[in-house]
């Protein structure tokens, strides 16, 4: 599994992420949360080599990530970003199947895997022939998820996957995503800035601020035993406002 040992990343003298130790627990969902610019995306990037650590190291199955090992490691880590990051010149199916094609999968294996994933993500099968520009935001996100799942990876990394969706679509997709994570038993790292989403998904949470870990633990730990006044402030700031009486 994936392990970070004192891994850190600086830009100039500024620490985008201070040295961090972390080991992913198989089958669990880890949520990384914090305000904008806290280092969430940097942490995720360290995990799949999009960001190079300038201190410490990142190991995948005990082997440090390096130019020689990164390709194989990435193929075992699905990655989903906001809006899906789809390739606009390929159809939905083309996006999902791209890596399998490069790896030389036979056509019928690709086709059956595509159908399987479309069912799993509630994506209409005839939509596989459409181009990203012809899909809705929620559909793009489903395609992005299918693409990440195509090779049945060990780990799923998701960077604000639902950040750009309207509330109803977001609500439905949250449910579907959690079902998928549970049914497939995937190890998941999900980045969000939304505390309720974090609470919904998390087996454990890491709260970051200015590139440093403020607290790690379960949702209950953060709520009931905040390590720092900032934790309480961060949680309270996201409480629905009609509960505290300040809503008009």
């Amino acid at each position, binding site marked *: 599994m994936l392990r970070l040992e004192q891994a850190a990343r600086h830009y100039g003298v500024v620490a985008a992420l201070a040295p961090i130790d972390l080991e992913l627990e198989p089958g669990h969902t880890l949520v990384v949360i914090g305000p904008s610019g806290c280092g969430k995306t940097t942490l995720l990037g360290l995990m*799949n*080599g*999009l960001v190079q650590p300038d201190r410490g190291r990142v190991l995948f199955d005990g082997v440090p990530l390096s130019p020689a090992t*990164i*390709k*194989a*490691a*990435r*193929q075992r*880590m699905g*990655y989903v*970003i*906001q*809006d899906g*990051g*789809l*390739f*606009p*010149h*390929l*159809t939905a199916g083309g996006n999902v199947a*791209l*890596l399998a094609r*490069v790896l030389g999968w036979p056509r019928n294996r690709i086709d059956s895997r595509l159908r399987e994933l479309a069912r799993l993500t509630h994506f209409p099968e005839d939509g596989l022939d459409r*181009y*990203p*520009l*012809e*899909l*809705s*935001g929620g559909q793009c996100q489903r395609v992005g998820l299918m*693409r990440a799942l195509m090779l049945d990876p060990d780990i799923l*990394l998701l960077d604000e996957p639902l950040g750009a969706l309207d509330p109803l679509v977001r609500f439905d997709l949250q449910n579907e995503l959690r079902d998928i994570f549970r049914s497939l038993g995937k190890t998941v790292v999900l980045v969000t800035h939304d505390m309720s989403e974090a609470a919904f998904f998390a087996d454990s949470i890491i709260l970051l601020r200015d590139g440093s870990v403020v607290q790690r633990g379960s949702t209950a730990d953060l709520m009931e035993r905040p390590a720092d006044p900032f934790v309480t402030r961060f949680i309270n700031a996201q409480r629905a406002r009609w509960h505290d009486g300040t809503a008009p």
Partner: protein
Amino acid sequence: MRIIVPLALAAALVVVASPPAPAAEVTVGSKKFTESVILGEMAALLARSAGAEVRHRRELGGTRILWNALVRGDIDVYPEYTGTLRAEILARENIPDDRALAAVLARRGLVMGPPLGFNNSYAIGMLERTARERGIATVSDLRRHPDLVLGFGSEFLNRADGWPGLKARYGLTQGNVRGLDHDLAYRGLVAGDIEVMDLYATDAEIDYYGIRVLRDDLGYFPTYDAVLLYRADLVRRAPAVVHAFERLAGRIDSTAMAKLNAQVKKEGKSDRDVAATFLRAALTVGTVPDHDADPMQLWRRLGPATLEHLVLVGISLAAAIVVAIPLGIAAYLFRGVGHGVLAVVGIVQTIPALALLVFMIPLLGIGAVPAMAALFLYSLLPITRNTHAGLVGIAEPIRQSALALGLGTGDRLLRIELPLAAPLILAGIKTAAVINVGTATLGALIGAGGYGQAILTGIRLDDVGLILEGAIPAAVLALVVQYGFEWAERSVVPRGLRLGKGTARP
């Protein structure tokens, strides 16, 4: 003895039966003004009458181009003037007279034939009417009229024996000096845009337009005796041809040359007919049928010109695509090299087309090859820059997605980055192609043919119809290329990108 006799007989038979030596091949060059073309035609006709296979590369771009081509051996002979040799091409040698000139040329493997009989000196002229009103008869008189507008051919304007020297010798102060094509300068003079211009003493226009030739009262201009300048190896390779050239010695005086010029420029006769008629009358040289006679019908001229033009543009563009796209990719992959690559192709682009063509001659000679090389260099920038820009411009989330997927560099390029950059790359190729169609017309200056040939001849003969015969097809071809690429875009650019920015999500 029994063996030797038949052997000797056989040897004798072989000697007798061996075919005559293959005809010598002679390439004649001429400059892009009528007198030079007529003299070139004469040299070609004489060489042909002496049994040589002759090619006449007419209307090459200027003294430097012909001189370099002769030194390289791309041409064997061209008409030149002693004054030009002494005062311009070999100015640094300070050659006192023509005898010394012959010795200097011999050191370079060149031979100057005997003078043809006329001195086509540079001269300064004005419309008779203007000269009379201002009271100007000599070059010295120009000093009293500093307001005059001067218009000089670009060669004269810059040559050591041209305007710079003249200005210094006579102490002229006119500030309003324009450079323009010699043949167009006459139009400017008649229209009143310029008042004083440089002349060649045998120009047909002097009589025709009533131009007063100002007396060179300080004796500034050297003599410009017309000669045929040829390579020394011609004497060995084709002695009969050299002998035929010598028959022209002293046979053309100034009046005769001016008349020949007028027959072409004012009476519309062809260079070849004028040259042939003169040779028949003066030297009783019969016209030998030749293979590259002027085709008369428009379509018969247009066909080969179109083919030449397409070959120039097509080959140079294809080579540029093969080189420039990888250059653009390299500039993208290796950021350090990238700036260097883009800077170099950018600098190439700033070299003026004519200068680039002239630079090519010492390397590649004259003809289509150096022209294609120059066009190739010009095509590099738009294609390289657009390839680079297309790749660099790919949105960061897409680049990251491709990386995170675990694709190698090659797969990322082929499957993601190049398809996404395709519209810009294609636009770069289109730009290069359209520019090439236009720039290729300059190729005629170094003997590459194409539509530029008609334009050059048209300018020389002041024949607007002929200019259009080159200019219109070139413009049409540029449009065809433009639309062709827009059509090609549909097949090259992935459909997912063509859905376009206007398509809203459902």
